[in-house]
């Protein structure tokens, strides 16, 4: 008993050491903002956080249904496991890198490492203006954490059916750290240079979709085509999963966009309306496009169009009126449909069209924000830098372009460097036999369905 106590004691000491280093006990920092937590706003942001969380498993189903049967678990797991790995990193250092006190407009400092120094009150001034002045800062932490999870998860669609789990794991850790955290800081962090510039991104057109879309393109190019690219057709094995995933993604997206108001107010309600309008219009227009072009309206087209519409409306969702969202969605459908077609021409194998939908949809959405943003919807939009179609001035559109181009290229380049590095450490893709047998059995030793005797 004494010995055990001793062990506990020394265990406790060790723990305390680590704790001090990481700031474990620090939740109740003394300083803090004078602002008060509002229960209604907090309720909405927490509910939204849960909604955004669900998008990642939903994405797993969405993606998982589109691959061949032998890769279904590997594909879902490549989404789901990011809830684990990126979830831990976010608390350890991701949040402080992205949202911590600014260093040169480029990155957050390590002041809030391990969430140390955060208390149960709203973020202190001047952060509260961006991180919510009526919600506990931890609500901001975890709401943003869900974005840090889904963004790398989106990329996995590009290298589905061939990337090794080990390489994937290292890649994700590096990408979350070196691409996502800085880019989130640029756009949404207090002092980030793109935010300061006045580029608008309500819920992640650049940070989430362009950033992951560009990375996806890079991955598809570097990792190469799936075995059998010219010979076999890689048709989806279980579209019921994909349709279920679509429902969950759309559902979660309400938190994504309307939660980004960080309050339960008129802006949130407008973002909610606008989100649904964009998704609905995207669904309809993609289906019409393929109906005209190929002669059949498809289930997968409806699903893809909804996602395209959601992607496109995301950056605009806090700045535009409902009818503008309908227009954004109506264009997003055919635009993404065309870009998915283009893929075949350029012969790169972005397995599940991450670039075609998230990249292109995100770019269109960021531009559309520059066309339709109105300060009447959101006073954050400067009256002299509203959308081109509102005031005829292209000032905002120019800023949007800068944001698009810089995030696109930063993500492309750094993703390329990361892949090169990972490739040195461990092979990026499975060998031919493993690819033939399927990633489920070769990477995980499992099979998706045991329907046979």
């Amino acid at each position, binding site marked *: 008993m004494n010995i055990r106590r001793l062990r506990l004691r020394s265990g406790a000491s060790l723990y305390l050491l680590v704790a001090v280093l990481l700031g474990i006990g620090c939740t109740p920092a003394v300083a803090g903002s004078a602002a008060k937590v509002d229960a209604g706003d907090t309720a909405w942001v927490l509910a939204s956080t849960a909604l955004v969380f669900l998008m990642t498993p939903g994405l797993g189903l969405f993606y998982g249904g589109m691959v061949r049967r032998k890769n279904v678990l590997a594909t879902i797991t490549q989404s789901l496991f990011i809830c684990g790995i990126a979830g831990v990193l976010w608390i350890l250092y991701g949040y402080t890198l992205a949202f911590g006190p600014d260093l040169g407009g480029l990155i957050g400092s390590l002041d809030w490492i391990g969430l140390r120094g955060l208390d149960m009150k709203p973020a202190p001034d001047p952060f509260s203006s961006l991180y919510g002045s009526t919600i506990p800062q931890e609500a901001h932490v975890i709401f943003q954490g869900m974005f840090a999870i889904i963004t790398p998860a989106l990329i996995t669609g590009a290298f589905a059916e061939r990337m090794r789990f080990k390489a994937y794991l290292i890649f994700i850790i590096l990408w979350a750290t070196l691409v996502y955290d800085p880019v989130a800081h640029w756009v949404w962090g207090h002092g980030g240079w793109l935010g300061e510039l006045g580029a608008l991104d309500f819920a992640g057109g650049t940070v989430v979709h362009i950033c992951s879309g560009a990375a996806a393109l890079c991955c598809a190019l570097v990792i190469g085509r799936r075995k059998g690219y010219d010979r076999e057709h890689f*048709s989806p094995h279980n579209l019921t999963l994909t349709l279920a995933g679509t429902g969950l993604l759309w559902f979660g997206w309400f938190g994504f966009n309307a939660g980004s108001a960080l309050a339960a107010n008129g802006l949130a309600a407008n973002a909610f309306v606008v989100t649904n309008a964009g998704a609905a219009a995207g669904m309809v227009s993609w289906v019409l496009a393929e109906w005209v072009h190929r002669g059949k309206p*498809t289930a*997968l087209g409806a699903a893809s169009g909804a996602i395209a519409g959601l992607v496109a409306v995301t950056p605009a969702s806090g700045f535009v009126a409902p009818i503008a969202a309908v227009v954004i969605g109506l264009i997003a459908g055919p635009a993404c449909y065309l870009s998915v077609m283009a893929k075949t021409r350029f012969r790169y194998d972005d397995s599940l069209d991450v670039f075609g939908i998230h990249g292109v949809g995100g770019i269109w959405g960021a531009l559309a924000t520059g066309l339709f943003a109105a300060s009447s919807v959101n006073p954050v939009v400067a009256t002299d830098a509203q959308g081109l179609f509102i005031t005829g001035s292209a000032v905002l559109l120019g800023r949007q372009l800068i944001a698009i181009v810089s995030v696109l290229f930063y993500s492309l380049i750094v993703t390329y460097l990361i892949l090169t590095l990972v490739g040195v450490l461990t092979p990026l893709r499975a060998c031919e036999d493993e690819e033939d047998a399927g990633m489920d059995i070769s990477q995980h030793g499992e099979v998706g369905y045991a329907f046979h005797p």
Partner: protein
Amino acid sequence: MIKVEALIRPSRLERVKNALDDIGIHGITVTSVLGAGKQRGHTQYYRAKELAVNLLEKCKVETVVPDELVDDAINAITKAASTGEIGDGKIFLSRVEDAIRIRTGERGEGVL
């Protein structure tokens, strides 16, 4: 003993089964297969891509019968499975050397 192996449309399975039942053939084994033949396939669409699919879902119905029942079986199946359209399927006949009932170990035509 002859094995009568019919490749039929899945939608006719029920009828074929009943037709065989009617002439006293109760032992059958059914397998879900894909078949290609004269019948045209479908076109599938997957995000702007078109795929011609010419393996269609069919049912394979197998029944091992004494020689004297073969013609009845063929007639029954043909009647129940035929729609007059291409894709109705084929029947193949092949000789079975012996049959054993697992439960009892019995052998020969009696076990059918």
